[in-house]
Structure formats: structure tokens, C-alpha cells
């Protein structure tokens, strides 16, 4: 296993990155032109009321003081109140996070399951017609604008064929006692299919190409040749040895893909009216809701950073050369 020292080092790095991202965010939001309260203050407010508001959000203090208050609040999980909703940002962001995560993970799991199998298969069948046809197709899926693909899927499978609902996570008025009850319902599944498919079509390319390329590398390795000389079954050779080794970097790329995918969600959530963090960020930015935009951005950044960390840990866990050093 990893030594305490390495874990400590990684945690320190994690905290450093989060601090740096938080600081960059602070600077962007405070130093950019425009009145940060514009979205909050109604024309009917008196000057006095506006001053009270400025004080409430600490905007009457010097910048460095605002910065330390900001950091201190962050440490306590305090992201301030949304201008637009007048509610604590933290609660809102936390409420939307599961929707984004489930969309991200379900699409990525499908994408990875498909990508890994197809990638391994293509590597096995290298040089064949399948490869010549498949590779350009896969590359094309990576070149599709996600919203464009989403709109086309929507037009075909929802508007024209009516197979799937056109947006949201549930049918109108359906109530669920818990998130789990919602996520495990067929109603939810029906709503999940199109957005998850959009994301999955886009994301399967990475694991597929990675898997194929790793497989090609690994299949040239001596231990795979040896496995064949040992007279082991093809299944053992391809799956237990070649694929298992080729899988290593692919698995770690999953964690990184989560980070990337959460960003891609921004667009797909808008197309499919999905109540997630990405759409919230877009709305918050359009509405100049600084605290909310900041909070949503930070939450996404935290997921990204945690996933980068997880990628590292996963790799060292899965590779005995590191875990059993």
C-alpha cells in the first residue's frame, strides 16, 4: 500500500490546488467589471438599503479582508447566499450535485463498459476491416458537439418516435420518498436514457481508443506470448492477461473522465432540462448570481480535483508494482 507519507503529500497537494482554484475564483469574481450586486438590487431599493446589502455581503470592506473572510467561510462550508434565490448556496449546490453525479457516472459506466470491450475486441482484430471502419467512426464521435448530438437524439427518439421523455428526471407530479427511490425507478431510467446516451456516445471514444492502444502494446509483451506458449485458453490470454494489464491506465482515466464529463454536463443538462449543477452554473452566470456561480464552480472543481486524486490512488492500488513497492 501507499505509505502515509505519499498520502500526506497527495492530500497537501489537493489542498493546495483547491486553495489556488478558490483564490482564482475570488479574483475573477471580485476584479471583473460590473457591480457584483446588480442582480440583487432592485431599482426600488433606496441607497440606504443598498448600503445595508453591501455590508451584508461584506462588499464594503477592503479586498484583502474580503479575501480572508471568503477563505474562512469556505473552510466552514459557507458559500454565502444566492442573490437570485436568496437562499444559502451550499444547500442548493448540494441538492443538485447528486443529479449531476448520477448522470455523469451512469453515462461513464456505460461508456467505459462499451469502450473497454470494443477497444479490446478491436485490438484483438487488429488490421481487419472492423478496425478500418471503427476507428474513424469513434474519432467522429469525439468530434461531435454534445448539444448538437443531444438535440438530434431528442428530435429522433423523443419528438419523432416518442420513445423517451424530452426532459427532466421524472414524470410530472411523480413523488419519490428519497433520492434512492427516485434513482431506482423505471420512470427515472426512462428520463436518464437520452442525456446519458448523449454523454456516453461522446465519452466512449476515450476508453475505447485507450484500451485498444494499450491492448496492442500489451499483446506485444512477453508475458502474453508466454501465456500462449503455456497453452492457456484464448480467453485467459486475452482477458486475464492482456486486457487486465491494458485496463490499468483505462481505469485511471475513468476518474479523470469524470472530471471532464462533469464539465460536459453543462451543455447536456441544458438540452435535457436536467436539474444539475452544470445548468445551475449557466443560470447563475447569466443572472450575475456571483455567490451561486462561485459555489457551483467550486463544487465542480472539488469533484474534479477529488477525481484526479482518486485516479492517482486507483492506479497505485491496481498496479502491484506501485502498491507492493
Amino acid at each position: 500500500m501507499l505509505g502515509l507519507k505519499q498520502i500526506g503529500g497527495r492530500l497537501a497537494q489537493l489542498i493546495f490546488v483547491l486553495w489556488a482554484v478558490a483564490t482564482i475564483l475570488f479574483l475573477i469574481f471580485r476584479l471583473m467589471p460590473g457591480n457584483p450586486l446588480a442582480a440583487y438590487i432592485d431599482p426600488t431599493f433606496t441607497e440606504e438599503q443598498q448600503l445595508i446589502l453591501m455590508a451584508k455581503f461584506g462588499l464594503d470592506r477592503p479586498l484583502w479582508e474580503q479575501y480572508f473572510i471568503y477563505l474562512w467561510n469556505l473552510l466552514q462550508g459557507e458559500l454565502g447566499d444566492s442573490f437570485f434565490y436568496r437562499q444559502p448556496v451550499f444547500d442548493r449546490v448540494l441538492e443538485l450535485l447528486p443529479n449531476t453525479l448520477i448522470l455523469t457516472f451512469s453515462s461513464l459506466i456505460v461508456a467505459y463498459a462499451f469502450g473497454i470491450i470494443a477497444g479490446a475486441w478491436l485490438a484483438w482484430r487488429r488490421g481487419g476491416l472492423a478496425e478500418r471502419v471503427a476507428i474513424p467512426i469513434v474519432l467522429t464521435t469525439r468530434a461531435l458537439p454534445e448539444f448538437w448530438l443531444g438535440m438530434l437524439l431528442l428530435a429522433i427518439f423523443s419528438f419523432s418516435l416518442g420513445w423517451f421523455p424530452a426532459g427532466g428526471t421524472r414524470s410530472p407530479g411523480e413523488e419519490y420518498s428519497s433520492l434512492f427511490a427516485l434513482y431506482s425507478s423505471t420512470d427515472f431510467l426512462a428520463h436518464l436514457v437520452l442525456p446519458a446516451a448523449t454523454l456516453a456516445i461522446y465519452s466512449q471514444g476515450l476508453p475505447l481508443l485507450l484500451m485498444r492502444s494499450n491492448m496492442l502494446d500489451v499483446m506485444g509483451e512477453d508475458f502474453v506470448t508466454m501465456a500462449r506458449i503455456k497453452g492457456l485458453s484464448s480467453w485467459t490470454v486475452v482477458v486475464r492477461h492482456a486486457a487486465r494489464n491494458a485496463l490499468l491506465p483505462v481505469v485511471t482515466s475513468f476518474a479523470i473522465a469524470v472530471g471532464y464529463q462533469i464539465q460536459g454536463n453543462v451543455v447536456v443538462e441544458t438540452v435535457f432540462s436536467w436539474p444539475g449543477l452544470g445548468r445551475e452554473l449557466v443560470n447563475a452566470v447569466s443572472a450575475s448570481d456571483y455567490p451561486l456561480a462561485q459555489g457551483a464552480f467550486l463544487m465542480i472543481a472539488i469533484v474534479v480535483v477529488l477525481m484526479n486524486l482518486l485516479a492517482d490512488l486507483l492506479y497505485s492500488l491496481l498496479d502491484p508494482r506501485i502498491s507492493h513497492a
Partner: protein
Amino acid sequence: MHESLDTQIESRSLIKQFFDSLHLPTGDPFAVAGLIIYAAFVAVALSADVIATHDPTEILYTPAYELAADRSPGQEGYILGTTSLGRDIFSQLVYGSRSALLIGLTAAVMVALIGTLVGLLAGYFGGLIDTILMRLADVAFGIPFLPFVIVLAAFLEPSIWNVVLAMALVLWRDTGRVIRAQVLTLRTRAYVEAARVSGSSDLKIVFTHIAPNVLPLSFLYGTIAIGWAILTEASISFLGFGDPETISWGYMLQDAYASQALSQRAYYWFVPPGLCIILVVVAGFFISRGYEEILFPKLKD
């Protein structure tokens, strides 16, 4: 006269040298297809004035002074029809290639340049410089890219350059790390050692001995960045943070989306810009794959 000819020859040979050092992947059929697609789009972009039948932003009217909107392809001489607001779709498509190339190429240059520089410096000098640059890369990896572009676009004036700026600020990270790793292996090579022993300055070694060897790698990441830039611009436009002054494919898609082109069954409006994006981006991928084959040849047995 004589002198200018000389410099001309010299500069031409420099260009040739540059292209030679890029090792354009002309052996791979896909890469060649990619290069041809690029060439075609560059040609269209350069001659957009000639090819386009209308000013892409002009509001078109019928002789009876009614808006010439929602014309289907071929109707009244509009090759791909007109938008809901009466603009010529074909001309927008043609001019869109300009924005795409402009954004794509500048972003690619920025990403490749910054990433290469970071990788070279961090890899060659190591120590504190390496630590600082690589921690910066860690931070860049912690920044969710699209949200970052959205935030930038919201605060700065809507402009296609926001995408380029954001890419320059964030996306050098991948290139930087890869090039650094490459430099780390290069710096131990004998000829670099030799140059160092013979007293060449560090900068000279970096730029004359190491840089040329990582150039194809920079170019590889550059071609990927072109695709990223164009896709990102499209996403940003779609979300309404795009540059409304510049006709781009992203703008067209956004326009079509906002005008419910799909409900109107105006596929001739919604599909072509998407296809153009796909073509250009996939061309970049093809080229970069060609590069990979050169740089990291797979064991063909």
C-alpha cells in the same frame, strides 16, 4: 537584390526546415485525409468573400420588402435557404470557416506554445522552476474547463477570443506535462550532454538541441487543441455566451436552436454547421493519430 534573394532562399529553407521538423504524417491515409480537409477549409476561409453569395449578417428582403426568412434550400436562389431572421445560411456556413480556423489555429498555437515552453523549462531546468510550473499545472488540472470559459465569457465582453484566452490559461497543462516528460528523457541523451560539456548555454541547448525534438509532440497537441477550441466555441455559443458579432458555426447552431430549426424540420440549417465542426475536428484527430503512429509506433510485430 542579391541579398534579398539570399534571405528569401534562407527563409524558404527555414520554412522547409520547419515543415521537415514537423514530420507531417503523410504516410497515413487518414492523416492525409485530415490534411486535405484542413487545406479545403483553409481555402474556403481565405476565399470566403468570393464563395459566399451574401453578406452573412445582412437581413434579406424580398422585392416586396418582406423578410426573406425560412426559405428552404434552393428557394429564391438561396443555396441552403435562409434563417428565421432572414440571413443566408450558405454564406454563414462559408464565413463560419473563418472563425473556426481563426479560433482553432490561435488556440492551437497558444496551447502548443505555452505548453511546450512550460514543458521545456520545467523538464530541462528541473528544481524550483519545475516544482513551480508543475504545481501550476496541477492547479490548471483542478479548473473545470468549460465552466471556466463560461465565467470568463460572462465577465469579459462576449468574444470568440474568450475561448482562446481560456484555453491559453488552462489547456497548456496536458501539453506541458507530456513535453516535460519527453524533455526529461532527452536531456540525458549523449548529444545534449556533449553540448553541455562543450559549454553551450542552457538556453541554446534548450532551443537548438531539445526543442526541435519535441516539436512534433507540440504539433500533435496543437492539432488536438484545434478541435477543442472549435467545440468549446460551439458549446459556449450554444449556452448564449458566444460572440454575437462573429458568424461562427457555433453561432449558427445556436441561432438554429433558438429558432427551433428542428421543429421546423429545417435540418438543412441545423445539420451543416454541425457537420462542418465534425469534419474540421475529426481532421485534427486524424492528423494527430498520424503523428502518434510516428511518435509512438505500435508494435506491429
